């Protein structure tokens, strides 16, 4: 990754134009060549520096549902519970965190009703109480990392 890659990563996090030749528009903005920009983006995708490049979807606005929830897992049961939770396809992300609430996961379901089914299933499988932390308002969602 060189300085040009870094400038591209910074610029492409802000949004991509809906022009017929959008890479040309980005290239002109940064003083680069269109084909060079495309090659660089391809390489950044292939090497995993960019995990995604394209439309970022808003699950709830598309009819799906998301929920952040936490568990207090006894340390000796942690690996077993992690395996039980991760086995559910509705679990999109799961993180271990340094706290009494030591497991935090996001449920993503086809419909809002699917969330309560998933919670019940996790409680049944793990024997633990799921603490739902539903979103009441969203102030900012974005990923802005200076490369």
């Amino acid at each position, binding site marked *: 990754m060189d300085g040009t890659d870094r400038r591209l990563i910074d610029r*492409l996090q802000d949004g*991509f134009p809906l022009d017929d030749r959008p890479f040309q528009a980005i290239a002109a903005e940064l003083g680069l060549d269109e084909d060079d920009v495309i090659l660089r983006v391809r390489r950044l995708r292939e090497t995993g520096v960019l995990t995604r490049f394209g439309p970022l979807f808003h699950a709830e606005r598309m009819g799906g549902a998301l929920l952040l929830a936490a568990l207090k897992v006894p340390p000796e049961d942690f690996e077993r519970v992690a395996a039980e939770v*991760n086995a559910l396809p509705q679990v999109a992300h799961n993180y271990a965190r340094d706290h009494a609430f030591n497991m935090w996961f996001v449920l993503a379901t086809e419909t809002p009703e699917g969330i309560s089914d998933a919670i019940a299933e996790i409680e049944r499988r793990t024997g633990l109480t799921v603490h739902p932390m539903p979103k009441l308002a969203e102030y900012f969602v974005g990923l802005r990392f200076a490369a």
Partner: protein
Amino acid sequence: MTRLRQTAGLDDLDRRLVLETQEGLPLERRPYAVLGERLGISGEEVRERLARLIDGGQIRRIAAVPNHYRLGYTHNGMTVWEVPEDRIDDAGAQVGALPFVSHCYHRRPSPPDWPYTLFAMVHGRSRDEVEAQVATIAALLGPASRGHQVLYSTRILKKSGLRLSA
């Protein structure tokens, strides 16, 4: 797997367009024209549909998402703040505007052991950098926050992302 429902205001072509772009945009000179060819419509119609989905909020934006670990952001803290309901919207707007905050939400608390209402994810290249970010938020909120905690992630247990199936 999340199936797109008719109720979301997406017609059949929109749904096919979403499926075609789940893995990303074609990395070609005319990416929208390439998508149009796959769907049997013009590139211009693809761009019109994408613009409409952005306006309707079903697409947040078209952009690159970096793997933040690859850019050196290895320290990630979920900061949680005890902000009363009557101050939360102002607090959320201020904290959400900070450049190092990637997500900022008002969430329902679970008293007594979880009184926190404002969640802000912060990312730094060192633990010190994250601690400085937390201090910045604390100073910004002042007495609007009655207490806070920072939960550092210690391990990713699963990260499959969201996949849609039509």
